Structure formats: C-alpha cells, structure tokens
C-alpha cells in the first residue's frame, strides 16, 4: 500500500519524484533534470546516489562518461569522481561534485534539490 502521508512529507521536505527504481539497475546511471538542476543518479551495490550531472571542471555531461563501481569518469578530460560523495579521485577537476539526497519509496525514486 502506498503511504500517502509519506509522500506529503517527502514533497514538504523538498524531494521530487524523478522515476521508478527499476529504471536504474545496479552499476548503471541515469541523468535527470529536476527544476534547473541536471542530476546524475547511479546505483551501486543496490544503493542509489545522486550527484550533479555536469562535471565540475569544464563542461561535460557525466552521464556520457563511465561508471566503474563507485568511480565516475568524465568523457571530456577524464576526471574521476566518487559518485557516493562527489569527491575528486583524479584530476583535472579540483572541485567536488555537489551531492543530493536521494531516497526510494515503494519503487519510486525521489531526489531532494
């Protein structure tokens, strides 16, 4: 049974419904636009993580890169980020990726932006 009160709580807390859990299998990622934000959501070992979808270095969409376990590689100058916390694992990026809270409720994905 879908818990309506929980949905209200999510919405009240700034969460947005962005899609269904089945759309992001383990080890894969997807780019979504929430308001003005481009968000990248990835699933690793069953858990969802959400980071800014645009590389913090120059301009590239990270969904066009590759995800290897928790390492997210940019397709333009190949910076590497930890998708779990946005940290830079390898340059040329120097700034971490902003991270977003993401949660799954009843097979739905909600992101807070």
């Amino acid at each position, binding site marked *: 049974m879908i818990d309506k009160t929980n949905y209200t709580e999510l919405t009240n807390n700034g969460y947005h419904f962005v899609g269904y859990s089945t759309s992001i299998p383990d080890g894969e990622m997807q780019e979504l636009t929430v308001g003005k934000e481009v968000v990248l959501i990835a699933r690793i070992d069953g858990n969802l993580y959400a980071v800014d979808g645009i590389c913090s270095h*120059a301009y*590239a*969409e990270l969904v*066009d*890169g*590759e995800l290897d376990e928790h390492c997210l*590689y940019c*397709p*333009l*100058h*190949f910076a590497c980020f930890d998708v779990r916390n946005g940290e830079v694992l390898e*340059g*040329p990026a*120097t700034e971490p990726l902003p991270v977003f809270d993401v949660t799954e409720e009843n097979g739905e994905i909600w992101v807070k932006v």
Partner: protein
Amino acid sequence: MRESKPIIIIGAGLSGLHAAETLRHEGFDGRIILIDREKEYPYDRPPLSKELMMGTMSSSEIYLRTISEYERLKIELRLGLNIDEINTENKTLIADDGTIIHWGKILLATGTKLRELNIPGNNLEGIHYLKTLADAKSVRQSLDDVNQIVIIGAGFIGAELASSFNKLGKEVTIVEKSETPLAHIFGDEVGKYFFNLHTSHGVNVITGDSVERFEGTDRVERVVTRDGKNISCQAVIVGIGVKPNTELLQEKISCENGYIVNEFGETSLPDVYAAGDCASWPYQGKHIRVEHWDHAMNHGKNVAINMVQNQTAPYHKVPYFWSDQYGYRFQYFGYTTLPKPTVWRGDVQNHRFSCFYINNEGIIEAALIVNQPKEALPVRRLIAEQKSVDMEQLANPQSSLKKVHT
C-alpha cells in the same frame, strides 16, 4: 635529514604546473621553483579561443589554481622571469635579471611559440596572434570596432576563433593555404566536412590561397592574397601554428622537433627532463610531439613521478585533444599517418559520428569522434589496447564498442 636539492621547472603552463604539484604529492621535500616569463599566475589556454573569446567566461575564471594552493604546497612561483641560460657544469641557471638559481634537477616545460607571418603590412594595428591571456584580452578589447575579421589559417585555433566570432555576429573570412582545411591531419574527406561546417554557418573560407600583404593606413583595412583577392577587414588573427621552445640547452640536448625524451621524460642530459608541448616522446615505436592539453597535463605529472622516483613510471597515454566549434564537440584520439579514415560510424549529415583510422593489422591507430561523447572512453581504450577490431561491427552504430574486437 639533508634536504633534497631544488627542482626547477621552467614554464608554468599546464605541464609545469602539474609537474610541480605531482612532485609534492610524490613526497619530494626540497624546494620546487616554478618559473615563467609570463607575469600571470598559471592559467588555462583552451578557453582563450572559445569561452573567453565569446564572452561566456571571464578572465578571472581562467586561472588553474588559487594563490593559496601554491603556498600550501610550497611551490615557489617566479613569474615574469625569463631564463636565458642553464649551466650544467655547476648546475646553475641565469635569469634575465641576473638572478642565479642553483638546481638539482630541471624540468623543461617551455611549451611552444607562435609561427609568425613575415609579410608587408605586418606592423599595422589590428593584426593579432593568440597564445597568451594578454593576446586574448587585446583581441576582446578591440572587437567593438570590428565587423569584419580575417583569420589566417584554418587549423584548430583558427577554426575555433571563426566559430566564436561568428557567434558574436562578426563577418568572418578564413584564408587557408592548403586546398582543404585540416586535411594533413584527417585526410580530404574529413577536411571537407570541416570546410562545410564553416561555410554552412556563414563563414567564408578561401582555400589554396595565401596572404601576400596587409594594407591600411595605421590599422589594417585589407588583406591581399596571392591570387589577388582583396578582403576588407578591421582585424586579422594569424593562427598558422607553433614550434617548440627549445632554445635552452639546445646545443647540449638531443633535439628534433622538440627535446627528445625517453619514456621517463629524461633528455640526453643527466638530471634534465622535458614534458608537454616542447618534448618529443616515444609513442608506439615512434617519437612524436603533440600540442594538446591532455598530454601536457599527463606528461607533466608522469615525468614528475620519474624525477622523484627514478624511472618508475613509463609514459604511454593515448594522445588526445578536443575542440569546440559552432556548438559541436570534436574529440580526437591516437596518432596516425594513415591518409584517411577506414571506417565511419554514425550519422555524418547530422554531425553525430565517429571515424576510425585502422591499419593493415586491423588496429585502430586514431579516431575522430563528433558529438558522440559516450564513445570517447571506449574508443580511447580500444586504441590503448592495440588489438585488432571487426570493421563491420565497428561501422554499425548499434553494436557496442565494447564488443568490436576480433
């Protein structure tokens, strides 16, 4: 503990900067002195012809590191200092202001210098080159009074400038000596693609002709070509290529199209290394020199590791550059002397394709990727692996690049 002898890096460009940082990260505890004749803190060059020229990025955003970062890593920046001479007997170097600096090891990261046109009218105002932030600022500042711009040379810098000025609403003409732009790198067919890319955006491209003189009273007003064309303009930008800065130690180090280095970045002189655009390095059995951002960064980092830990990190990155023109993104991997692509994949008409230069053994030597960023990392891997590929699979955009090996 005795402190290590200073490491001097000549050239605070991309390569020199990354080398300096890497030395520290690798645990080097001595002095690191990073020298440049430019007065600017280290900055990034690619935006000069793109975002900065279009005005979508300001010059304050172009610096590679904050000032505190140099302090944190104890990198001693010496800006506005030109090195004239390096003495290898007593290991000193002499700057143009007479300063003498002692060194233990040296990294030459001197980059390249512009090729210049030596023709009548050279000294008129409004004739520009583009290499430094100061060059870019001076072009930007003059743009208000300019409607027509002539670009000499349809290489990458010329092409990016054409695209940027086109975006700013200027009337742009490119004059290119060869029959087809970029054909010497990509072959005729791809060259024609780039030709059409310009013309379809309303940029005039004159090929197979060269500039004979500039005319004007004080400022440039006309470009006159060998074939007798007169092109009115209020500004000219010359982008006819660069050559490596190898004046320092030239007599003592083996040089041929750059300082020759081995896979560890060592020159023929002990304790003297070279990295980036100024170095000629071994790639797939040949010595090559590339003038690309990605190489400059990686080579600088790599050579620095070897400067701290002797010969531990052989360098073999696949050469790579990208270019942004007219809102399209081009990515080129590898190195080839093959005259044209062997396999095309994707949709050329809609500017979403990749083309591959494949040798007789079925190995991809190089690839150009156009607006297909998802293909970049897989293609880089394919080229690095040097395994033969199934050309039919490769030509089929439906088949995954992860499954094209024979």
